[in-house]
């Protein structure tokens, strides 16, 4: 269970959101620059809210007294452009934050990237990069998964496959997932809940 309450002044508006999330996929849907990625960054610990509370499974990640460092938040984060380590092979990328090699192999098989083990990020396709980044985000067995427009750079058929893969993985993992997108179609296909954000505030919430 994730509880988020964030207040933060951004350049053009004030971000002011509050939501609770069970082991479901919540989609943050809205235009570019509406504050979606800022919410993810605050939850991950990359940015600090001015006010608010963030709890993950009753553990305080942020409040007016605590600000748990990124390293100890147990959150998997898949960045928009994947942010793979360019000088490391796929295997080293995935294994970077973990000690359990068997689990890394299992993840690679699950995401069908085992054959890319020795390839470098510049040698693989966009869809493969996305799967490597997903495997890497899951490798540390996070309690929450943040996905920042992970499908935006993919072609239609690869995107459809990736959508199905995410839904299947979520069935297996059962952790809260927050997905950021500006595609309504994607939001409706993947989200158990859709939180529509406009200028830093939730304007509409729908359930699927």
């Amino acid at each position, binding site marked *: 269970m994730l509880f988020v309450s964030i207040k933060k002044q951004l350049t053009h508006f004030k971000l002011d959101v509050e939501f609770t999330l069970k082991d479901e996929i919540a989609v943050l849907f809205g235009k570019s620059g509406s504050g979606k990625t800022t919410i993810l960054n605050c939850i*991950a*610990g*990359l940015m600090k809210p001015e006010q608010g509370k963030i709890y993950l499974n009753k553990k305080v990640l942020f409040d007016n007294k605590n600000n748990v460092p*990124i*390293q*100890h*938040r147990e*959150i*998997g*984060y898949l*960045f928009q*452009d994947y*942010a*793979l*380590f*360019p*000088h490391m092979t796929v295997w080293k990328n995935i294994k*970077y*934050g*973990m000690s359990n090699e068997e689990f890394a192999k299992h993840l690679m098989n699950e995401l069908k990237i085992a054959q890319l083990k020795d390839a*470098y*990020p*510049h040698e693989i396709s966009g869809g493969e990069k996305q799967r490597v980044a997903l495997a*890497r*985000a899951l*490798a*540390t067995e996070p309690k929450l998964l943040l996905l920042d427009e992970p499908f935006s750079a993919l072609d239609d058929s690869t995107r459809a496959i990736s959508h199905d893969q995410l839904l299947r993985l979520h069935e297996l993992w059962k952790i809260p997932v927050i997905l950021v997108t500006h595609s309504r179609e994607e939001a409706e296909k993947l989200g158990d809940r859709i939180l529509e954000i406009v200028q830093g505030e939730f304007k509409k919430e729908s359930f699927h």
Partner: protein
Amino acid sequence: MTDINMSPLWLSFKTATIATIIVFIVGVFLARIISRHSFPGKSILEAIFLLPLVLPPTVVGFGLLYIFGKNGFLGRILLDWFDVQVVFSWYAVIIAAIVVSFPLMYQSAQAAFKQYDPKIEHAAYTMGASRWKVFWTISFPIAWPGLLAGLVLTFARALGEFGATLMLAGYIPNVTDTIPLAIYFAVESGNMEMAKFWVAIIVTLGFGAILWLNWWNKRNMIRYSKKSD
């Protein structure tokens, strides 16, 4: 020509190597911290770091003389507390080399740390890595081509330093006579054969360093930049 004293070669190498090691460590450390942080006075601090690049070496030498001279702020402390006299010593040669070559390393390191997306480091943090681990396993290897370019330029600049060295260290055979100083004083004393010899040595070293850097760039930098796509 048969009885050339080779001490300028040894002294220049020793000085440039020590200066390069110090400049590399300090330059990389400062560039790393300053490139990712904003604070009041950052522009002024960076301007001070880069000042030796635009000032005439004699002005740099004058400034160093002012600081490290017998009545200078640091010069007095070093003399009173440690009985170390900097002016006209080998330490002066190293200090001059450090100060004039530092901006090159700092600029190269700063560019190297800025050329990749900070999200790459953020990703490592979310995977539980400490700052130290992220620096050694992510930031440093990715920035390495740029750092290496800075390293080579720093060494070449330290090797060729003349003006500030002459101001602060003077010309004392076997103590402060680096190759550039040896060339100047050989010409001044009319010993053109000696001057030609040292010119040939320093041109070969400089040319070799640039040639090697270009070769290394072609071989590795392209691979690295592709990897950053």
